[in-house]
């Protein structure tokens, strides 16, 4: 059977075919789950929040203007609902990571290369173990970084879309993304012991 596109489904739901919402729900379930899992630290609240997000999407479906992709709008509803929840729970929203890597970057640009005597510790790490450690390290990052990493790497959204969802300027999204990945690389490298190669 031919798959109906988002617009057809939305129009059908607005015309009263509420059962079609199950198809939209199935299509965007992963996006909502990923965002909620990364933004909300308390696991016991996540399921209720997912339900609330989908109900909000259903109730305000008529407000979707088709000016962006539907996935961007869904992510924005999910993001705002999570932010409201976190504000109610008094979870700090605006922590930051230390920026200062520009000078280090300048030094690196002029360095003379000496062949490494050690293999990259991340390249040697077992993939499953690396993923598990990475999830823990992501959870330790401030909220904006976790959100941006999720939208960029899991949902394959671009800087403009992420900016629209989070309300941050595109340049800030880009900076946060680079900073988060650099911090993760450093923390993971520190996590795995360096072994000398023969």
């Amino acid at each position, binding site marked *: 059977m031919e798959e109906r596109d988002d617009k057809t489904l939305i129009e059908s739901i607005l015309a009263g075919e509420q059962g079609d919402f199950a198809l939209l729900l199935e299509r965007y379930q992963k996006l909502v789950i990923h965002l909620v899992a990364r933004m909300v630290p308390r696991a016991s609240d996540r399921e209720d929040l997912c339900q609330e997000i989908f109900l909000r999407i259903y109730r305000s479906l008529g407000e979707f203007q088709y000016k962006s992709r539907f996935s961007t709008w869904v992510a924005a509803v999910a993001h705002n609902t999570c932010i409201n929840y976190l504000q109610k729970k008094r979870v700090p929203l605006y922590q930051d990571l230390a920026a200062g890597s520009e000078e280090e970057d300048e030094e690196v640009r002029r360095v003379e290369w000496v062949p490494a005597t050690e293999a990259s510790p991340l390249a040697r790490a077992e993939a499953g173990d690396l993923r598990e450690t990475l999830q823990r390290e992501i959870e330790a990052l401030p909220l904006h970084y976790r959100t941006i990493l999720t939208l960029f790497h899991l949902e394959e959204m671009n800087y403009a879309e992420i900016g629209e969802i989070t309300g941050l300027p595109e340049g800030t999204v880009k900076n946060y993304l680079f900073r988060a*990945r650099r911090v993760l690389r450093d923390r993971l490298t520190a996590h795995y012991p360096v072994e000398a190669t023969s």
Partner: protein
Amino acid sequence: MTDHLRDAELQLYLDHQLADRAKLDHLRGCPFCQERLDAYEPLFAALTSAPAWQPSPALPEKVMRKIRRDTLGPLHENLLHSILIIGGLIMALSLSLPYLRPAEYVEEARKMRLPEINLSWEWLRELNFLPRLAEMSNRIALPVNSILMFAGALLLVLLADQLITFARGHQPPRSR
């Protein structure tokens, strides 16, 4: 010597967004930059793995159930509301019906020589409505008793229905 790539440029390369040809050429021929790139590659691969948390498989059904309940509206929200409404109507009718005796009313009205209705201010003043109503309700069983009983019982049922709705935190669907 061409400058090595900045950290952000290495990340851009891994995002497939580095377009500067000179930098791409440098990266291909520079073992130092390649080494730094190698340190990022496993991280980028692992970043595409989803968080471990999963909701219960019943999540879609729970959402759809809430949506169905949402669409039906507060008075028909569930069985309890239906029972309340039907039960309330039966109670209201059984309380009010014994008072409804139209034949007796017509006879008593004839005896009392009630004025003809013409709906003018003069008529209303002449009617002296409230004292007359009190007098009539003392003497005969009027349909007004029946109506008041019915309305009272219905009001109680609606009040109970709204209280239950409020206690459950029900939100009616937004009109579209």
